[in-house]
């Protein structure tokens, strides 16, 4: 009898172990699928990059491109590849990743699916800064060249001015939010108020501007990846790599925040500090990106939202996936913008929305069938 009971118990234990390994196998399969999505996205970025480095108004063949990348190119191909195409491609990958991951964190921190890096009024503040530099401080002018009718003759002044204004907006919002212990509503509403304050300022400045200055400002706001050289790419890369590690470090906090503020607190999350850090770092990304590149909207909103629908809301995977999706979207859009109406380069911000919006609407209608 005792032997029988023992055998039964053994059998039970074995079954339980089998079930556990079965489940952990299933769980690994489930997380494996998410990792697979990340790998596929990364491969797509490599593919589009390869297409992008070959595309452009200067007709270089594949052999010339490869030789130039390997350091055996001629002067002309070196200039095209190393000074124009590669920094531009890297800028698209880095800025796309940064804007999208910043949007992902803002959507979580503000508990608002409509949040994006410009929610705190950063885009409007940066535009005001650019207006100030171009119109008031005379950084913009008109030149009759064959390529661009408008040249901004002091891009550094514009960049610095845009950056200072967007950080002022961020500081003001975070300072006001601090009084209300960083409640999402307070931050969103303060952002809306500051946005409209800065656009009012912009309108007033533009009202007294010359038409060529307005042209320069409009040109600036379009958003253009061609503005950056290696130095700017390096600054963007440092900032975004640091931010990405910071966001990953906080990924469990963001998951806890999704379950509600009180639950997050009960799980040991210092909600105020997490929100303050998240908003500050994402705003910094947005401010630097907009100052260097002009306004590139939509990526920060749609990148994380697309991935949320594909792999779910777990920030362990959502943060890297959003970054990759942002890179892919911006790189793809920029390559299209350069090739669609070549030799004319279309504004990348418009192309992003043009292709991102239908994709997003499709996913929205399809619902969350696969995550």
């Amino acid at each position: 009898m005792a032997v029988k009971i023992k055998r039964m118990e053994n059998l039970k234990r074995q079954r339980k172990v089998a079930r556990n390994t079965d489940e952990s196998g299933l769980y690994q399969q489930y997380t494996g699928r998410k990792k697979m999505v990340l790998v596929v996205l990364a491969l797509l970025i490599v593919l589009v990059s390869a297409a992008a480095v070959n595309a452009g108004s200067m007709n270089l063949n594949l052999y010339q491109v490869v030789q130039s990348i390997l350091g055996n190119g001629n002067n002309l191909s070196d200039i095209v590849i190393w000074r124009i195409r590669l920094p531009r491609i890297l800028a698209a990958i880095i800025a796309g990743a940064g804007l999208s991951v910043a949007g992902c964190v803002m959507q979580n921190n503000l508990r608002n699916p409509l949040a994006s890096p410009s929610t705190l009024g950063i885009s409007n503040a940066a535009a005001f800064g650019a207006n100030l530099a171009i119109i008031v401080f005379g950084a913009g002018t008109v030149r009759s060249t064959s390529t661009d009718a408008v040249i901004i003759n002091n891009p550094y002044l514009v960049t610095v001015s845009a950056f200072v204004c967007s950080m002022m907006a961020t500081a003001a919002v975070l300072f006001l939010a601090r009084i209300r212990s960083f409640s999402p509503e307070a931050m969103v509403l303060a952002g809306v108020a500051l946005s409209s304050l800065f656009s009012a300022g912009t309108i007033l400045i533009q009202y007294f501007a010359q038409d060529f200055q307005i042209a320069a400002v409009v040109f600036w706001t379009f958003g253009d990846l061609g503005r950056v050289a290696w130095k700017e790419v390096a600054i963007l890369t440092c900032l975004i790599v640091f931010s990405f590690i910071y966001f990953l470090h906080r990924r469990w906090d963001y998951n806890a925040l999704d379950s509600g503020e009180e639950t997050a607190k009960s799980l040991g999350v210092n909600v105020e500090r997490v929100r303050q850090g998240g908003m500050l770092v994402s705003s910094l990304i947005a401010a630097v990106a907009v100052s260097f590149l002009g306004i590139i909207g939509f990526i920060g909103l749609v990148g994380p939202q697309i991935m949320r629908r594909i792999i779910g809301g777990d920030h362990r995977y959502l943060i890297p996936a959003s970054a990759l999706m942002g890179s892919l979207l911006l790189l793809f859009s920029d390559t299209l913008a350069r090739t669609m109406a070549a030799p004319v380069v279309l504004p990348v911000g418009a192309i992003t929305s043009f292709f991102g919006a239908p994709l997003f609407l499709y996913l929205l209608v399809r619902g969350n069938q696969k995550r």
Partner: protein
Amino acid sequence: MILSAKGLSFIYPSRSVLRNINFTISRGDFLAVLGINGAGKSTLLKCINRILKPCAGTVLIQNDQAGKLSRREMAKRVGYVAQRQESISTTVFDAVLLGRKPYIKWEASPKDLEIAHKALEMLELEEYALRYLDELSGGEQQKVVIARALAQEPDILLLDEPTSSLDLKNQLEVARIIKRVVTTQQIGAVVSMHDLNLSIRFANKFLLLKDGEIFAAGGLEVMTPKNIESVYSVPVIIQNIENVPVVIPM
């Protein structure tokens, strides 16, 4: 004694919600917090683990002052389940794994996965491990969040109306699970409830709140028709039906 409150008070800007609350629970205690809507039940629970900061009084958790514990340390000792759950799009397993948050430094260890798994087992949720939380029924979701709180390996469970939105079967099941966990794991539970019959059947200690103050506290002996009538303003009788005390409103 694993939890005691002394002179606990909380004031919202417009009105005072809790005044001078004192109680103590030991391991294995199931304390039911009872009272009408707005009596201060939820506020009391939130003051215990400092989701809200009490204005006066102290909470002792295993002889340590709650105010001196870090959030993380508090989360290792006290599990909390809020009244309303957010609908989130993660799997049941990941939702329960979140209970390991106070212990996780960079990534969940095999031990964390194992504890999350055990918590699922305790609530008999293994089959649901890979289902999405927002696809489950209210009762199942409630069990998932209790499992998450258990994955914190707490000494004290705070549950804010865990049975209020459930059907009869799930109410009994959830109350039974709480009772079983409290007894087998030798932890303490503070549970705010509306269902007097459920509380009488499963709790061993009672705290009757009226207008933010303790009206009566103690064992089953405080659950008299007179006390209940004073707290709820409804006359009741209590009858034993097959050895189960039943509160019948008149």
